[in-house]
C-alpha cells in the first residue's frame, strides 16, 4: 500500500513539479543539459527512496536539492577519473540556498525569457519554449507542427548551444530592456496559441494542448508582471478560447462569427478577459494585443452581429492602426466599416486598403472584398474575388468555405436571372 501511494505521489510530482524543478535547476546548475541530467537523477532517486522512506513534505525542494547533489556528486567522481576540472570545484563549492516556493514561478519566468530571447531564431524560440517550459517532448512538438522530429530536435540543440556560447543570461530582463524582451516572449506565446487555434489539420488533441499551454504561459507572465500588453494577450487568447467550440462544425468546416451559436460561448472566460482588459486600460498604455482584445470583447458582449457596436470596433481599429499600421489591421478596419456604414462604404475601404499594398496575396482580403460585392449584388465581381481567394489558400476548411460561397453565389445569381 505504501508502495502504491509513493508511486502515485511520484506520478503527481512528475506532472506538477517537473517543469518547476527543471526551471530552478537550470539556474542552479548553470545550463540546460546539466539541469536535465539533474532532473532525471532526482526522479530516479525519488523512485527508489520515496517508497522506502516516505514522500517528502515538499517534493519540489526535495527534488531540486537531490538532483543538484546527485549531479555534482557524479561530476566529482568523473573529475577524479579525468583529472580535476577547475570550474567544477567552483560550482560544487558554492551552495546556493534552495529557493522558497514563492520563487518557483520566478524561475519559470526566467526560463520563458531565456527561451524567447531575440538572439534565437523565431522557430527555435517556439520549439524551445514548448519543450523546456511546456514540458512537451520533441516528438509531440513535431506532431503538432507536422514537422519531422529531427528537424525540431536540431532546432532545440542549436538554440541551447547558442544560449551557452553567447552566455545568454538566465534572468528576467531589467526594466529598460523589458518592453522589447516581453514583446518577443508574448509573440512566441501568441504564435503557439495561433498554431493550436487556426490550423485545421493534424491531430486535434495536440492542437488543443497548444492552446491550453499558451494560455498557461500567458497566465504565468501576467501573475508576475503587471504589464498592459501581457494582460491584453491573455485576454485576447481567453476570448478566442471562449468561442472555440462554436467556430467549427461537426464536419470540420468554419462557422462565421455571424452564424456562431453565441449561447455556447464560455461566459466565464469572457468575464475573466473583460476584467483583464479593464485593468490594463487603466494603465493608459494601449498596445496591439490590448486593442485586439478590446475588439474581441466588443464582439463577445454583443447578442448578435446586427447588435454589435461596430462604431466602437471601428474606433478601436483606428487606434490600433496608429500603434500597428499594418495592412491586415487596415483590412479588418475596412470590414468593420462595411458593417457600420454598409457594403458600399466597406468595399471602398477595402479597395483603399488594397491600394496601400501588402494584401494582394492575402486570401482574406479577397474574400472580404467578395462579401461586400455579394451584398451589393455584384455577382460577377464577387465570383472573381472568391476565386482569387480560393487560389490563395490551401487550408482545407477555408477552401470548403469559399467553395460553398461560390456555389451559393451561383444559386443566388441564377434566381436573379430567372
Amino acid at each position, binding site marked *: 500500500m505504501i508502495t502504491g501511494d509513493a508511486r502515485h505521489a511520484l506520478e503527481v510530482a512528475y506532472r506538477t513539479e517537473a517543469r518547476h524543478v527543471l526551471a530552478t535547476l537550470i539556474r542552479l546548475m548553470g545550463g540546460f543539459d546539466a539541469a536535465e*541530467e539533474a532532473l*532525471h*537523477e532526482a526522479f*530516479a532517486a525519488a523512485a527508489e527512496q520515496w517508497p522506502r522512506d516516505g514522500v517528502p513534505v515538499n517534493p519540489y525542494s526535495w527534488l531540486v536539492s537531490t538532483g543538484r547533489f546527485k549531479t555534482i556528486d*557524479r561530476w566529482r567522481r*568523473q573529475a577524479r*577519473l579525468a583529472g580535476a576540472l577547475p570550474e567544477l570545484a567552483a560550482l560544487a563549492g558554492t551552495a546556493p540556498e534552495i529557493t522558497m516556493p514563492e520563487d518557483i514561478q520566478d524561475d519559470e519566468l526566467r526560463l520563458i525569457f531565456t527561451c524567447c530571447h531575440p538572439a534565437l531564431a523565431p522557430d527555435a524560440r517556439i520549439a524551445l519554449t514548448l519543450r523546456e517550459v511546456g514540458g512537451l*517532448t520533441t516528438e509531440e512538438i513535431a506532431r503538432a507542427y507536422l514537422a519531422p522530429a529531427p528537424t525540431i*530536435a536540431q532546432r532545440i540543440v542549436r538554440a541551447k548551444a547558442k544560449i551557452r556560447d553567447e552566455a545568454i543570461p538566465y534572468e528576467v530582463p531589467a526594466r529598460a530592456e523589458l518592453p522589447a524582451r516581453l514583446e518577443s516572449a508574448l509573440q512566441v506565446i501568441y504564435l503557439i496559441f495561433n498554431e493550436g487555434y487556426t490550423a485545421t489539420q493534424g491531430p486535434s488533441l495536440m492542437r488543443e494542448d497548444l492552446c491550453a499551454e499558451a494560455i498557461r504561459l500567458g497566465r504565468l507572465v501576467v501573475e508576475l508582471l503587471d504589464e498592459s500588453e501581457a494582460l491584453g494577450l491573455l485576454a485576447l487568447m481567453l476570448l478566442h478560447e471562449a468561442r472555440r467550440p462554436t467556430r467549427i462544425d461537426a464536419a470540420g468546416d468554419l462557422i462565421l462569427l455571424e452564424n456562431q451559436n453565441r449561447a455556447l460561448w464560455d461566459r466565464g472566460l469572457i468575464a475573466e478577459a473583460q476584467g483583464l482588459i479593464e485593468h490594463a486600460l487603466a494603465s493608459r498604455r494601449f498596445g496591439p494585443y490590448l486593442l485586439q482584445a478590446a475588439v474581441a470583447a466588443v464582439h463577445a458582449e454583443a447578442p448578435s452581429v446586427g447588435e454589435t457596436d461596430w462604431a466602437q470596433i471601428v474606433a478601436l481599429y483606428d487606434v490600433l492602426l496608429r500603434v500597428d499600421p499594418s495592412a491586415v489591421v487596415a483590412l479588418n478596419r475596412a470590414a468593420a466599416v462595411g458593417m457600420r456604414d454598409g457594403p458600399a462604404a466597406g468595399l471602398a475601404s477595402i479597395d483603399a486598403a488594397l491600394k496601400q499594398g501588402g494584401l494582394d496575396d492575402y486570401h482574406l482580403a479577397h474574400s472580404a472584398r467578395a462579401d461586400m460585392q455579394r451584398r451589393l449584388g455584384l455577382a460577377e465581381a464577387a465570383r472573381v474575388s472568391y476565386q482569387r481567394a480560393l487560389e490563395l489558400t490551401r487550408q482545407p476548411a477555408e477552401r470548403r468555405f469559399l467553395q460553398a460561397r461560390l456555389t451559393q453565389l451561383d444559386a443566388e445569381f441564377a434566381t436573379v436571372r430567372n
Partner: protein
Amino acid sequence: MRYACLIYFDPQKAFNQSPEAEAVLRDSEPYNAELTASGHMVAAHALTLPQAAMTVQVRDGKMSATDGPFMETKEMLGGIVLIEARDLNEAVRIAGGIPFARLGFVEVRPLVDYSQPRPTL
C-alpha cells in the same frame, strides 16, 4: 521511448594506442555504468572488427554467405547502445556523452513504434 545509439568509428583511429583513443576506450565502461545507474540503459554491446563478420543473403531461395562487409567507408559500425529516453533531445544528449562520439559519430535512431502505421515509400 527507446532509441538505438549506433556508434561508428574508424578502427585505425580507435586502436592505434594514441592517448585520445585510449581515453575513449577507458571511459566507455564507466559511461555505460552511469547510464545503468540513471535508468537510461537498456543494453550495450560492442561489435568486433568487420574482418570477423560474415554477410548472408538469400536470392531465389538460395543462400550465399561471404566473408566480411569490406565496404569502402573507413567508419564501421562498432557498437550499439540501446537507451530509454524521454524524447529525441534527451536521447541526443545521452548519445553526446558516449565517449566514442569524440572519435567517430553516433547515430540516434528511435525504435519502431508498432502502434503507428508502417511507412509507405
